[in-house]
């Protein structure tokens, strides 16, 4: 399997199905682990990194992870391929630009990935479409058990699983959901959501783009505390307590828009669709903004001829590395904007 083959399709976890998928795009659980008897990444020689890579790679590939399991040697992959993997959230940006022997195992239609030699020796994650954190946790915990039978993890009875950064100590778990919250944004309530999340010791980040900027109203919400709290507690707090409440707020905000501002709502959606269907040049920022409005419109039944799957797919395939791999060559910003506009026009015309 070559990474380039991924460029034209949607990820299984970025789907149009799954509980509350109009608001919760996907669920993810990540575990950070390190091997006993090895230094952490900053102090490893390339030889020792290679040793870890070979060891973990062999162990993970020996597990039953379903069909279509493949390993990518990130260190020797082309820059564009590495960027593609990062755009699909299969590896982190840090892993894409890192140095030395490192790789990733991808399985289950991109729903399982294991980064080797990122910040920790092993960072594996399980994705699911929609609100499905419990399922993610159960799957990753089983895989973790299988790996643990074959290697010895660095573990301390007081501090739990030992990680390179003390902020991941303990369970090494990061539980996150990706949320689409356009109505909270439109009704000026997004700050309340961000403040409430931070009060609950949760981190809020943007899903697309760099840093904390949430372009296109996509937010990633995740736990910060990993020590002193059981994994199930973290999963339950998010899946039973916090996310359902946010979903309710977003729904109420959508309902309020429909009841009180239906014309300006329709105007926003239809203008977005109009620009996307006719633009000849479009930047990735602008397309994210506009696709966000269209996604809201589709979910509210205001855009009858476009499917949610199409809109979701466009978010992925209009990213820079995706476009360049589709074109089969490097493109400058203008060429990318032209190809992006073309891809969007075609996709939205077919529907």
């Amino acid at each position, binding site marked *: 399997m070559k990474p380039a083959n991924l460029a034209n399709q949607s990820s299984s976890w970025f789907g149009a199905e799954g509980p509350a998928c109009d608001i919760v795009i996907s669920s993810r659980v990540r575990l950070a682990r*390190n091997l*006993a*008897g*090895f*230094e*952490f*990444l*900053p*102090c490893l*020689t390339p030889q020792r990194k290679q040793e870890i890579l070979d060891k973990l790679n062999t162990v993970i590939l020996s597990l039953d992870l379903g069909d279509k399991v493949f390993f990518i040697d990130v260190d020797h992959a082309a820059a564009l391929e590495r960027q593609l993997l990062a755009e699909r959230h299969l590896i982190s940006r840090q892993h894409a630009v890192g140095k030395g022997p490192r790789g990733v195992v991808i399985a289950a239609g991109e729903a399982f990935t294991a980064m080797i030699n990122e*910040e920790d020796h092993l960072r594996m994650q399980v994705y699911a479409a929609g609100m499905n954190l419990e399922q993610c946790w159960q799957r990753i*915990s089983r895989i*973790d058990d299988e790996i*643990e*039978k074959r290697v*010895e*993890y*660095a*573990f*301390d*009875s*007081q*501090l*739990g*699983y*030992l990680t*390179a*950064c*003390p*902020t991941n*100590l*303990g*369970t090494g*778990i990061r539980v996150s959901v990706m949320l689409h919250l356009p109505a909270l944004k439109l009704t000026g309530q997004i*700050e309340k959501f961000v403040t409430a999340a*931070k009060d609950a*010791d949760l*981190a809020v980040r943007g899903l697309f783009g760099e840093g*904390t900027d949430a372009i296109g109203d996509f937010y990633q919400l995740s736990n*910060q*505390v*990993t*020590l*002193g*709290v*059981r*994994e199930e507690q973290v999963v339950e707090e998010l899946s039973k307590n916090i996310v359902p409440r946010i979903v309710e707020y977003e729904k109420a905000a959508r309902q309020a828009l429909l009841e009180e501002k239906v014309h300006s709502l329709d105007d926003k959606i239809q203008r977005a669709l109009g620009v996307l269907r006719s633009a000849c040049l479009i930047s990735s920022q602008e397309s994210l903004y506009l696709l966000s409005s269209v996604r809201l419109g589709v979910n509210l039944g205001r855009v009858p001829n476009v499917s949610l799957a199409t809109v979701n797919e466009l978010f992925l395939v209009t990213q820079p590395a995706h476009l360049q791999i589709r074109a089969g060559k490097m493109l400058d910003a203008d060429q990318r904007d032209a190809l992006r506009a073309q891809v969007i026009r075609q996709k939205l015309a077919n529907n």
Partner: protein
Amino acid sequence: MLCQICKDNTATIHLTEIEHGRRTETHLCQQCAQKQGLAVQAQIPLNELLNNLLAAAKSVPDAKDKAVGFSGPDVPCPACGITLRQFSETSLLGCPNDYQHFHKELLPLIERSHAGHSQHCGKTPSHAGKQQKNEVELANLRRRLEQAVKAEDYETAAQLRDQIRQLNETR
């Protein structure tokens, strides 16, 4: 709402000031707010906390009072050779042994990052507990071996290699 200063980004920081009974509102984006000195602390400032600890350590010798921060010199971990200063630059530790070696210094940081917790609960590996005592020694020997090879001191390197082999056999 756009930022009042750059008129470009969305305003996310809304400041209400009341002076002499008059109310003024200011709406800024994150970047402009920072330029105005209105820092917004989003995440736990790990680096900052560490630098404070190190600064406290620095000031200790003059004060003749060793009660503040961590005292004494920044002794490198015997296994990986990393110092607290190096850790403060990257927020990343060098090896599992650092958690023992820098236990006292790291504990306040760990508690702050984890809502006051310092005891793990949750999954535990089935073969936890029979931790290798030789790990630190091995890491130390490996590091010295590497240095010896670099310095082309092959006599020492050969000795170190034999010691490593011996330790590995007793594992």
